[in-house]
């Protein structure tokens, strides 16, 4: 095993029934040589990159389309970023924004897995003058 360590962030979709507590406990119970830190949005895991990828895949079995992950630059609890130590958190606005979109992503991935074709894009078209005139008269 290489000595390289990586930190990975696991985020739970707001449409999922999995809680950060359940996710952290499940990862703890795997008995892997990694550090787990529960957060409000999911958890942070730190350890060898290959282990983290396996843990991500294992954790996803609870909710395949409800748990999302990305690599994190800073280690878990780093004083430069950790809120507990008054660190700045400049990327949090983005995480919060993307968290809201995860519910749509979960729905989309569920439909994709069920083999449903996506709906056609709505096209904006001009309305005929007569129809436009009717609308104007209705407003008056």
């Amino acid at each position, binding site marked *: 095993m290489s000595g390289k360590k*990586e*930190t990975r*962030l696991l*985020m739970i979709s707001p449409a999922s029934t999995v809680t950060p507590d359940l996710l952290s406990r499940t990862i703890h119970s795997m008995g892997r040589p990694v550090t787990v830190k529960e957060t409000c949005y999911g958890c942070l895991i730190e350890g060898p990159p290959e282990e983290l990828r396996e843990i991500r895949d294992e954790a996803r079995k609870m909710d395949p389309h409800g748990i*999302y*992950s*990305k*690599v*994190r*630059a*800073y*280690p878990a609890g*780093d004083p*430069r970023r950790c809120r507990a130590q008054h660190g700045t958190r*400049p*990327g*949090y*606005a*983005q*995480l919060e*924004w*993307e968290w809201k*979109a*995860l519910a*749509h*992503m979960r*729905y*989309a*991935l569920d*439909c*994709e897995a069920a083999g*449903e*074709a*996506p*709906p056609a*894009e709505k096209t904006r078209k001009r309305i005929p003058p007569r129809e436009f005139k009717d609308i104007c008269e209705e407003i008056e």
Partner: protein
Amino acid sequence: MKVFIDPPNSLILFDIVERFGHEPLSTMAALQERVNSMEIDMPPMNVTLDDVIRGLKYAGIEVPSGIRGRLAVWGPMIDEADAAIVMEEAPFAFGCVGCERTNVMVKYLLKRKGIPILFAKYPEDGDEARRFVARAREFLEGLG
């Protein structure tokens, strides 16, 4: 294949690229080395002399240092990329990517490189998300 994502710190794009079997090129992975380096106290707010020199490859000397500093991190990733997914009109609050000039430069560098690029928008409802996932799957599976 290595896929550059823009915004380069996006969770959704990072996850989608990994789900469909490719390697995402992200800011987080690039910054991990700097974070662990003792020379830099507070990345990505500080840049080293090497970064400034590296940034000159992607932006001229008259370009503001903030853009050059960002390109010093993202430029080598663009050089390395085999394909890219770009989210247009990403919210400006996206942390370190809240610099429109840099984002314009990134799009220019990607187009100049001539790699396959998927332009998309952040989904605002379920149907938009379905269209986005279908396009992303088609694009990523087509990369081989």
